[in-house]
C-alpha cells in the first residue's frame, strides 16, 4: 500500500508542479471539441442523408442521390474509425495537398463517421412520424422540404433524442484514438505524464475516472432534456 501512496505522490508532483494539469486541461478541451463538433457535423450530414433516403424515388435524381448516400453510409460504417483517421491524415490530405492539424482532421473524420450512424438513427426517427403529418403539410400547400423541416424533423428529433445522447457518449469514448493522427487528447496528456515519471498506474486510473465522470454528466444532461421535453407534451 505504501507503494501505491508513493505512486500517487509521484503523479501529483508531475500533475501540479510540472504543469501536468495544463496538458490534461488541453487534452480535455480537445477531446470535448472533437466530440462536440464531430456531433454537430454528424447531425448535419446525418439529417441530409436521412432525408435523401426517405424521399419518394420516382425520379432519377433522388435515386442517384440515394445510391451515393448508401455508398457513403456503407463506407463509414464498414471500416474502423482508426483506419478512417489514418487514411484521411496520411493518404487523402497529402494527395490533395492540404495541411491541417490532427485535431481538425479528427473533428472532420468523427463528423463524417458519426454522420453515417446518425443518418440511420434520423431515418428511423423520420419513419416513426405518422405519414399523415407530411400529408397535412402538403395539403395546405407547403412544399416537401418545408414540411420536412418544419413538421416532420422536429417530431423525429424528439423521438430519437435518447439515441442521440448515446451516440454522443459513444463519440466521447471513441475519440480516445485520435493520437493516431497526432491530436493531443486526454489519453495523450495522461500518457505523457506517465512517461515523464515512468509511472503509468495512477495516470491511467485518473484518466479512466475522468472519462466516467464525463459520461455521467452527459447522461444526466440527457435525462434532464428528456424530462423537459415530456413536460411540453403535457403542457396545459
Amino acid at each position, binding site marked *: 500500500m505504501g507503494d501505491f501512496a508513493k505512486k500517487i505522490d509521484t503523479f501529483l508532483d508531475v500533475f501540479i508542479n510540472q504543469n501536468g494539469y495544463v496538458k490534461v486541461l488541453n487534452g480535455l478541451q480537445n477531446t470535448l471539441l472533437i466530440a462536440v463538433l464531430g456531433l454537430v457535423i454528424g447531425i448535419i450530414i446525418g439529417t441530409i442523408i436521412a432525408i435523401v433516403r426517405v424521399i419518394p424515388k420516382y425520379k432519377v435524381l433522388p435515386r442517384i442521390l440515394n445510391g451515393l448516400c448508401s455508398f457513403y453510409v456503407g463506407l463509414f460504417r464498414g471500416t474502423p474509425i482508426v483506419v478512417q483517421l489514418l487514411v484521411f491524415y496520411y493518404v487523402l490530405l497529402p494527395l490533395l495537398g492540404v495541411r491541417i492539424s490532427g485535431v481538425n482532421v479528427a473533428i472532420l473524420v468523427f463528423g463524417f463517421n458519426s454522420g453515417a450512424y446518425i443518418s440511420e438513427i434520423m431515418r428511423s426517427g423520420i419513419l416513426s412520424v*405518422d405519414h*399523415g*403529418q407530411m*400529408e*397535412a*403539410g*402538403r*395539403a*395546405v*400547400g*407547403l*412544399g416537401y422540404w*418545408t414540411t420536412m423541416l*418544419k*413538421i416532420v424533423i*422536429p*417530431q423525429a428529433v*424528439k423521438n430519437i433524442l435518447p439515441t442521440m445522447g448515446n451516440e454522443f457518449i459513444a463519440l466521447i469514448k471513441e475519440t480516445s484514438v485520435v493520437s493516431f493522427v497526432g491530436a493531443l487528447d486526454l489519453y495523450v496528456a495522461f500518457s505523457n505524464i506517465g512517461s515523464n515519471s515512468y509511472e503509468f498506474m495512477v495516470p491511467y486510473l485518473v484518466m479512466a475516472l475522468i472519462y466516467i465522470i464525463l459520461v455521467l454528466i452527459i447522461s444526466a444532461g440527457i435525462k434532464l432534456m428528456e424530462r423537459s421535453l415530456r413536460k*411540453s*407534451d403535457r*403542457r*396545459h
Partner: protein
Amino acid sequence: MIDVINLQKSFGEHNVLNGINVKINKGDIMCVIGPSGSGKSTFLRCLNCMEDPTGGQIIFNGVDIADFKVDINIHRRHMGMVFQHFNLFNNKTVIENIMLAPVHIGLADLKKTKRQNSIIKLTNLFRSSKMKKELSPVTTDKAQIKQKAKENALALLDRIGLKEKADVYPSTLSGGQKQRVAIVRALAMNPDVILFDEPTSALDPEMVGEVLDLMKDLAKEGMTMIIVTHEMGFAREVANRVLFIDGGQILESAPPEEFFGNPKHPRLRDFLSKVL
C-alpha cells in the same frame, strides 16, 4: 370549378380508378359514398394530387393540375383537405396549426416580390428613362403578415368556440375538437373548395354531431365541398349531389332525393339496402 375528365389511377397492376368523369361547380356540396375499397379515398386524393393520377385530367380553375409541369403547391392553397385522422401538426400549438401555412405562404410571396423588384431595379439601370419598368408595390411586411394571420386564426377559433385552446397542443384536445380545428386550418387559406375524407369516421359517436354541424354551417355559407362519408343522413340533408362509386367507377350520380328515393343502379340498391 373542378372538371374531372376520364381520371384513372392504378397502383402498379391494380387499377383503382377506371375513368371518372365529373364536374363540380362553385357552391356544390357533393357527397361520395360506396363500399370499402371502392376507390373513394383515392378519388378524393387525386383531386389535389396527393395521389398522382395515372391518366386523365383534373381541370381546376382552368388549369390541368394532373399535369406534372404545374406547381401543385400553388393550386393546393386553394383546395383545403380534411382527413379522417385529423393530422394536426403535433409539434405546433392549435393557433400555430392554423397560422402556419398562411404565414409561410405570405412570407414566401413577399420574398418573391422583393426579389423580382431587385431584378427590375438592376435591369432598369440599363434601360433608357422611357423604357424603365415599374416596381411591383410592396404593401405589407413580415410583422403585418403574421399579425393578420393571427387575427384571422383567432377569429376562426372563436367561431368554433375554441379560442381559449389557442395555445395548447393538439394532444390535449378531444377528437371532435381536433377535427374542428383541422377544418378551420383548411379554412384559414380561404380555399375555393374543401375535400373531406370520412371526417367523422374516427370520432366517438357523441362528437360526430359537432363536426357535422360545423360542416353544415360551411355549406350554408356557400362553401364548395366534396365529402367522402358514411353518414347517409348527412348526405341526404346537406348534399346537392351524391355519387356512388364502386369498382373505381361512378355508377350513379344524382340529387339526394332521387339518389336515396329512387336508386337506379342495382349495385347502389343493394348497397343502400345494407347500410340504411
